[in-house]
């Protein structure tokens, strides 16, 4: 593919508000996971964003936890300024919106169901489906906030969602339907995922420990992340990150269990390398999907070592942020971009002793080394896989 520039980023996770807060936490090896008790005897660790403020009155219909977290990230000063400059340069109808979320504002519907009219069973009149629950609400809110008028769509392909949204944006820019795009998305904690993952036995009681011998499941997190993606020619600075390649595939195996041989994951990584015109040896660091489930980490390890051998440094940053589901792709795209900008390969704060059955060169501690190109992996339910390759402008 023709490389594209990522020219601005914005990020909100349990590590803090803003890209710098995440960078500080990565440098300090700090985890954002905290213990939380939920009803029905569920004790687990989560990566929570501190209580986000309600949206402004003009946006009241959009008000829900997911859109509040999204708005926190979208209204980050530097990001909003970058989007305004891009709008000035390209025109409002030439900037597309390609976002992702898995559960959107479903938490609003959960609350509305608890407030149903006891006689009629109807949902309360202050409940707004289109602006909260529907996944497209995220794109509608973004278009409203930035006064954009280009094509827009929201991807919802489970935990590969916001990585795949970069693919949608890339195709639309290649097809000439827009010159730049807002990419990214948000997912937020809700009872549906908290109790849904528990029902599958995939949630750890402690903080998640990717690639640990004693790993026993994931920790849920919430996050919003956005990036401005632009055509490579013209505008841009030396600090920009290049999107070099994208590979998408499916396991075609099972709805909620990854292929234990990692065949689909391997195919996504190989396709990303082919799309970037790179060899495995060109990749300096791999940001793994690594959710800390027994089967998922083992399958990814098989796939990574099949493509890269056991030498390429890699880690999962889920121990910092928790698994932010649909947002994981953009969160880790931004973390991978920080790795490149600051020559920082992040360690894995909650992982203690590596699983001896896994062969990847998994980093427990931060490593300071030249990082020119990173692969970022995102895999999800339904067997949906996406690998991205990011690099620096000036090699």
């Amino acid at each position, binding site marked *: 593919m023709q490389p594209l520039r990522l020219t601005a980023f914005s990020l909100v996770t349990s590590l803090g508000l803003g890209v710098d807060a995440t960078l500080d936490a990565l440098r300090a090896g700090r985890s954002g996971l905290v213990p939380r008790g939920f009803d029905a005897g569920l004790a687990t660790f989560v990566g929570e964003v501190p209580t986000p403020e309600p949206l402004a009155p003009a946006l009241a219909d959009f008000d829900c936890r997911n859109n509040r977290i999204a708005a926190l990230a979208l209204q980050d000063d530097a990001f909003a300024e970058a989007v305004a400059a891009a709008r000035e340069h390209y025109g409002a109808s030439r900037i597309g919106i390609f976002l992702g979320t898995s559960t959107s504002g479903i938490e609003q519907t959960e609350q509305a169901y608890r407030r149903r009219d006891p006689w009629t069973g109807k949902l309360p009149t202050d409940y707004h489906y289109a602006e909260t629950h529907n996944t497209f609400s995220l794109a509608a809110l973004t278009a409203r906030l930035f006064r954009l*008028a280009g094509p827009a769509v929201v991807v919802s392909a489970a935990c590969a969602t916001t990585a795949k949204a970069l693919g*949608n944006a890339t195709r639309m820019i290649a097809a000439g339907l827009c010159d730049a795009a807002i990419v990214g998305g948000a997912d937020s904690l809700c009872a549906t995922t908290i109790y849904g993952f528990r029902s599958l036995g995939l949630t750890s009681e402690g903080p998640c420990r990717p690639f640990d011998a004693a790993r026993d499941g994931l920790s849920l997190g919430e996050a919003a992340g956005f990036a401005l993606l632009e055509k490579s020619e013209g505008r841009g600075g030396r600090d920009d990150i290049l999107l070099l390649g994208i590979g998408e595939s499916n396991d075609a195996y099972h*709805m909620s269990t990854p292929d234990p041989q990692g065949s689909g994951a391997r195919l996504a990584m190989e396709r990303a390398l082919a799309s970037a015109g790179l060899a495995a040896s060109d990749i300096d660091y791999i940001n793994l999907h690594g959710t800390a489930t027994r089967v998922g980490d083992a399958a990814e390890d098989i796939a990574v070592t099949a493509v890269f051998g056991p030498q390429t440094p890699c880690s999962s940053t889920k121990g910092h942020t928790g698994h932010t589901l649909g947002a994981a792709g953009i969160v880790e795209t931004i973390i991978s971009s920080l790795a490149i900008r600051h020559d920082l390969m992040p360690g894995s704060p909650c992982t203690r002793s590596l699983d001896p059955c896994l062969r990847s060169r998994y980093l427990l501690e931060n490593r300071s080394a030249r990082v020119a190109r990173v692969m970022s992996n995102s895999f999800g339910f339904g067997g949906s896989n996406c690998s991205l390759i990011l690099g620096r402008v000036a090699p």
Partner: protein
Amino acid sequence: MKVFVEGIGVWAAGLEGWASSREVLAGMRPYVPAPLTVPPSPLLPPNERRRTVATVRLALKVGAEAFANAGRDPSATATVFTSSGGDGETLHGILESLSTAELDVSPTRFHNSVHNAPAGYWTIATRSREPSTSLCAFDASFSAGLLDAAAQAVFDHCAVALIAYDLPYPEPLHSARAIGSTFGVAFVLTPEPTRASFARLTLALGRGFTAPTSLADAALETLRQGNPAARSLPLLQALARGSEAEIALDHVNGNTIAISIAPPPW
């Protein structure tokens, strides 16, 4: 952007399959909606067939028909799924459970609740490892899916199937999001003409220069307005008539998608 249509599948009240729908949409037979059922897909093994939810059944039904009409192997073809929402019965079941003290979500319901459940079942049933995505743009979900499928066909130079579906939600969700009826539609698109191609589509994004095309038949127009996937009806009608046509579909943010339809020779 130019793409070629190899095969179509459709399933809605009074539009049960492309062969008979074609006659109705071309005006050769009147449109008579009749009660609709969505049969389980023969693509799935018998034990899976019983467990599949309505959105999955509908998506697999129209997808299988489009591939059969195209004479193309689904295992080697990328897919774009698009719908305004996930499976209504599944969602309602989860929300009901979560509104009680049990807070019990069934694992099967949970995996069926994800927006990409039809894509997951499709790729498992067809053994396809080709890229697949699942999209939403509320009422404009069909045109958003069509844009992405066409861009993927052209950009990746491969065949892409577009599968669009939406079903009514049960109450109380229906009162908050009214989807009038069930509608599923699928297209197999290619970047170059093949022996199976019967129409060329030229797509352009336009800012309000045309109003979305509506349908002269009142019942079909009600169907079009009531279901996001049925926003494809002007395109289906033009393809059923088989002559040159210009139509526009509603998109988002004040845009429309203008489509020129041309039969062979190209």
